[in-house]
């Protein structure tokens, strides 16, 4: 059941009607049942894993809290982590690691016949496993009290708006909302409706319209392109994945608001950032925050000297890349962003060491501000193109190294002409950038002037109806 399907819209209507009629406890029970129905719609067999993850972590958290011995506590946490990671590892990474292991052995002249399993990847496994793990870790750290009511915890893990593609809402944010009765206000519902509309617009107009062009650009036999099409394909994918994923996140946040919940922002203005550090504060924020809180900082963060910081950054980004999927391309993508972060960090340190005294603390009026703005814009443009090169690794996939290499060659050639695809890609891209530029305003729709509200709703609805693609295509991040 995908958000952009008719079945989901009917499901949502029924859920909302029931939800508004009943009291808090019954609401939670109904939402759990609805969420399991939503998830089981893909494949009922996936429900077993979801139930196992939920009850296993529920039990672990209670034991962790009750355990006075710190060593045994640690063992419990390790047990929980290993079990969760084993589940995700088995379903997501087994075939990749088995294949890689066989290839490594074969380079040394050895042979291993590891069985290749035909495993169906449960939708959203990475999302709800990370969600559940964050809860156990928080309880272990004492940041959070273990949930007593299993229904509250089931709702926290399985709540359908975030279940299959996030945001990875941390337990300390969402669990109290599950536990306590929700307080509704009109503004929240209005903002929720607006966010849903905006999310659908991003998905069916921006992402799904660009999708055939991206598929064409990455299909075998198309690249290399002699004109600027290589760049256009990368731009198109950059905007497609933004429209797709941030659209999903908007719909998720909008749906949550309609039921009185609040989710964190998952996207701000990722393509208007100047450097990788900023980018990761704007792109898939819930994952960045998870990686920071539960991986980077526990590894030592930036407190143990330059080399350790570089190591921690690289480990975090490589694992962040692999979180997306089992494949060398995702590993390369993580590595690419890790290197970018390291270079940026080093450059910043150097700049501070060399030029800091020369920079005046207060700037004179007029021209320097404009100059800074130009410099800012130039960095935004440059970093956007660097991000696009990263998307090349992400999109092409491990099996298409030839496509990656042919793209890398053509990207270095200055385009002399643009194909007929330039107009729609740049047009839809401009729309995506406009929405990013105004991202903070999008959240307080209820406080806009009435004229702006009318125009915005009518324009978004008209855009969806007249430019949208309604083939019920899946969201890209469902595969992760």
């Amino acid at each position, binding site marked *: 059941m995908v958000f952009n399907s*008719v079945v989901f819209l009917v499901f949502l209507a029924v859920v909302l009607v029931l939800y508004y009629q009943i009291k808090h406890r019954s609401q939670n029970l109904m939402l759990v049942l609805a969420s399991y129905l939503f998830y089981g719609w893909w494949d009922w067999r996936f429900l077993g894993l979801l139930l196992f993850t939920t009850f296993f972590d529920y039990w672990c958290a209670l034991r962790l809290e009750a355990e006075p011995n710190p060593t045994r506590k640690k063992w419990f946490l390790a047990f929980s982590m290993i079990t969760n990671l084993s589940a995700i590892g088995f379903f997501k990474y087994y075939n990749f690691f088995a294949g890689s292991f066989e290839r490594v052995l074969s380079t040394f002249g050895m042979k291993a016949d590891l069985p290749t399993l035909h495993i169906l990847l449960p939708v959203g496994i990475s999302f709800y496993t990370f969600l559940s793990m964050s809860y156990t870790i928080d309880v272990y750290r004492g940041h959070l009290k273990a949930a007593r009511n299993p229904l509250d915890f089931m709702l926290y893990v399985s709540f359908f708006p975030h279940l299959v593609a996030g945001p990875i809402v941390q337990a300390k944010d969402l669990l109290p909302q599950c536990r306590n009765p929700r307080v509704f206000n*009109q*503004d929240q519902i*209005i903002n929720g*409706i*607006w966010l849903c509309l905006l999310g659908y617009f991003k998905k069916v107009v921006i992402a799904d*319209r660009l999708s*055939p*062009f991206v598929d*064409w650009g990455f299909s075998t036999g198309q690249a290399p392109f002699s004109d600027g099409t290589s760049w256009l394909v990368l731009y198109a994918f950059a905007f497609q994945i933004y429209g797709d994923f941030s659209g999903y996140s908007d719909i998720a946040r909008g749906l949550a608001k309609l039921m009185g919940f609040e989710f964190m922002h998952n996207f701000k203005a990722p393509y208007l950032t100047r450097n990788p550090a900023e980018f990761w504060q704007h792109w898939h924020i819930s994952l960045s925050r998870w990686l920071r809180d539960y991986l980077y900082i526990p590894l030592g963060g930036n407190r143990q000297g330059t080399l350790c910081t570089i190591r921690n950054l690289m480990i975090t980004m490589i694992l962040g890349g692999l979180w997306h999927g089992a494949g060398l391309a995702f590993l390369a993508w993580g590595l690419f962003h890790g290197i970018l972060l390291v270079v940026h960090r080093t450059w910043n340190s150097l700049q501070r060491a060399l030029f800091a005294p020369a920079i005046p603390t207060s700037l004179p009026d007029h021209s320097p501000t404009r100059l800074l703005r130009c410099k800012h814009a130039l960095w935004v443009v440059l970093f956007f193109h660097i991000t696009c090169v990263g998307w090349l690794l992400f999109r092409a996939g491990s099996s298409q190294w030839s496509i990656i290499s042919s793209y890398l060659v053509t990207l270095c050639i200055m385009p002399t002409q643009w*194909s*007929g*695809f330039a*107009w*729609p*890609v740049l*047009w*839809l891209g401009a729309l995506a950038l406009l929405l990013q530029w105004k991202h903070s305003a999008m959240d307080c729709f*209820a406080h*806009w*002037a*009435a*004229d*702006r*509200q*009318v*125009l*915005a*709703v*009518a324009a978004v*609805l*008209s855009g969806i*109806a*007249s*430019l*949208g693609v*309604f083939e*019920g295509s899946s969201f890209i991040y469902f595969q992760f």
Partner: protein
Amino acid sequence: MIHLKRLQMPAVVLVVVSWLTYAVAGSAISRLAAKRFNVFLARVSGGKVADPALFIQGRIRELLILMTVALVLGLIGTVLNRWLKRHDRWQRAHGLIMGLAGFALLNVFVAFAGTTVLFWSAFFNKIQVDNLAQYQIKRALMPEAQGRRRAILIGNSQTNRSIDEVLMNEMIGKRLWTTELTLPGTHSFDLLTETRNMPLGHGDIIICYLSEVFFFGNGKGGVVSEFFGFEEIPDLIKLGGWDLFTPSSIRSSLAGQILPLYRDRSSIAHKVLGWPLINLKQLEFDRSLEHDMERQAARRAPQLKAGVTYGFDQAVLTRMVDELSARGCDTLLIAGHVHPALQRHMDPALRQSMCGFLEQLQTCGNGRVTVVDGARFFQPVSSDFVDLVHFNDDAQKRFTRKLIEYLTVTYVPPRGSL
């Protein structure tokens, strides 16, 4: 909002004055303009505009209708806005509700505009053709062809590639005005719904080129969703087609009936996002086809078979010719041909079955249905085709000339009798 309020009264005055001017001097203005733009119109339309003065008058009327509709809808919006402002309960959601109302009113406007040439002209492109826009323009222009007998070409791209309407209008346009209302990928149920929506009159000749690909290509008729409405549901069930359509195509068609903006999305997307992006899948499909016709035919021929849709197609076409006859129209069905290579690889029983059915059709419709074998005009050879089903330009012209000869003898009365 304040500025809009100020505009209301001048807009009402403008519309009223415009209508009055049109009533008094509309026809004279149109004639004057026609004199001035006669050559330009003839060049742009390729001779398809029957009467330039009538054409210009029609566009002026359309403009006035659209202005009036916009004004009325604007006033409805204003009234709704005032009503909402008076009710505190709706204060917070005022913008959201008015936005929804704006969307609804825009759809109402598009519903009206969708019947006009002016609206569809915005989507017209002679090189990167938008089929729906072209279809709608020609359909809207039909009532303006007066005083002559009319031939309407219907069907899929095979009709389009077999018969040249421009040549027909050049050669016998003064006696028989031809317009082509074909849409690529059209199937039987689309033909039925299309003809129901056409402004046909007594004596119109409906010409359709049909071949084995039409009947045995296993199409279910979900392509032309623009003309399938709620009123067609009983027919779809009665004729046994309900199970043959995908639920999504039915949903999409019905949604299009409620939201004209959604119904016209292909043309709007064409215009806004450009031809290459929208037609990418089709271009890729075309490129993926083998250049060797023999190999392409060998692969394609086994896919052509009398499937579950054949019975439905027969029932629908029978209904269509009955309805056309009841409206006083003559129907000319041409049993067309495909590429000789495809003909060779195809089961010969298919052609027999098709011709047998078409002959049966001839007995329907009170003698107003004629079936002609395409071979009567000429027997096509491999070099006459650009692909497995479509004629090249030269073959199209030759076929059209033969068709004109036939029409002149069979349907069109001698000069001066009308």
